């Protein structure tokens, strides 16, 4: 690989744009395809398929063995609510490779003592969220349990195409939330994108177990083919 190619991969990743490296395994020839150039590429259907699945793999094209290496951006996790569950969720998510940010305007909750080494923003969602550049490679978890904090955050997440959105609360709580969001003009299709009650059903009780259930659900959403995702 050329050092310039490696450098370009790193630049694109820092800007949170996916890239694909196409290597001819037979002769070592290599080229870098930027996300924006995929549509015009001769291999566009293969490239799009691999990018969509986030999977690298070998393909054969006209007798040549090519390897497509997909470099997708690092997934982010934004947690709304610096609550007990978040104290377990943030370090767990970080060990799974996510860039984690916790947002809660209640400074008694969002204290560094409660979240050592975690990026904390003690602001309301309307101030905290826009600079975070939330995108498709972001999982968004809403656990503040206060509609004044949770609802505007959910609206922001729905607008920014997060691959996962989950919200804490029983079916009854979520029913009331659904009514409030609909009153704000959110469509039924968008409301169905919210995972609630949050987390895979594993009988979780403690905050740490709920954190495991949430990360399991996020992992399923990220990795399973879309039809069978939880």
């Amino acid at each position, binding site marked *: *690989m*050329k*050092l310039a190619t*490696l450098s370009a991969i790193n630049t694109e990743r820092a800007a949170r744009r996916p890239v694909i490296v196409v290597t001819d395994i037979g002769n*070592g020839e290599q080229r870098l395809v930027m996300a924006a150039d995929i549509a015009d590429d001769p291999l566009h259907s293969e490239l799009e398929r691999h990018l969509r699945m986030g*999977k690298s*793999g070998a393909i054969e094209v006209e007798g040549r063995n090519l390897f497509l290496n997909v470099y997708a951006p690092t997934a982010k996790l934004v947690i709304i609510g610096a609550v007990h569950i978040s104290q377990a969720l943030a370090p767990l998510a970080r*060990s799974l490779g996510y860039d984690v940010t916790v947002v809660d305007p209640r400074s008694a909750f969002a204290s560094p003592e409660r979240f050592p080494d975690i990026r904390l923003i003690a602001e309301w969602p309307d101030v905290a969220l826009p600079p975070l550049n939330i995108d498709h490679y972001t999982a968004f978890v809403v656990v503040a349990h206060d509609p004044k904090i949770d609802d505007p955050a959910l609206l922001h997440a729905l607008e920014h195409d997060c691959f996962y959105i989950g919200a804490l609360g029983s079916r009854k709580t979520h029913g009331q939330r659904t009514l409030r969001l609909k009153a704000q003009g959110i469509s039924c299709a968008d409301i169905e994108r919210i995972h609630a009650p949050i987390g895979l059903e594993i009988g979780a009780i403690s905050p740490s177990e709920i954190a495991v259930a949430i990360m399991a659900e996020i992992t399923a959403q990220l990795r399973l083919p879309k039809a069978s995702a939880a």
Partner: protein
Amino acid sequence: MLDRDEDLLKAAENWGKAGKGVALATVIETWGSAPRPAGSNLVVNGDGTFLGSVSGGCVEGAVVTEALDVISSGTPRMLEFGVADETAWTVGLSCGGRIRIFVEKVV
């Protein structure tokens, strides 16, 4: 903290810019219960320092040795590891999987 892909590719870039020899190993294909998926990277510099992984730890030592050769020769090579190898008892995959790894120099 775990080395993430972007951290190790950044480290490889920095090594290259500092004038060190660098090789990039990439898992191309896996069969059976291989622990790291296709696309996983391991980067090695001329001092033998490496970051990342291409298996659960079973073959990294052998890959680093091969990568040092690739840094000297400049010629990419394909490595294959699996329980069917005659080397199985020294550097085989204990999990029973097979992997193919492409090793190339960063130039």
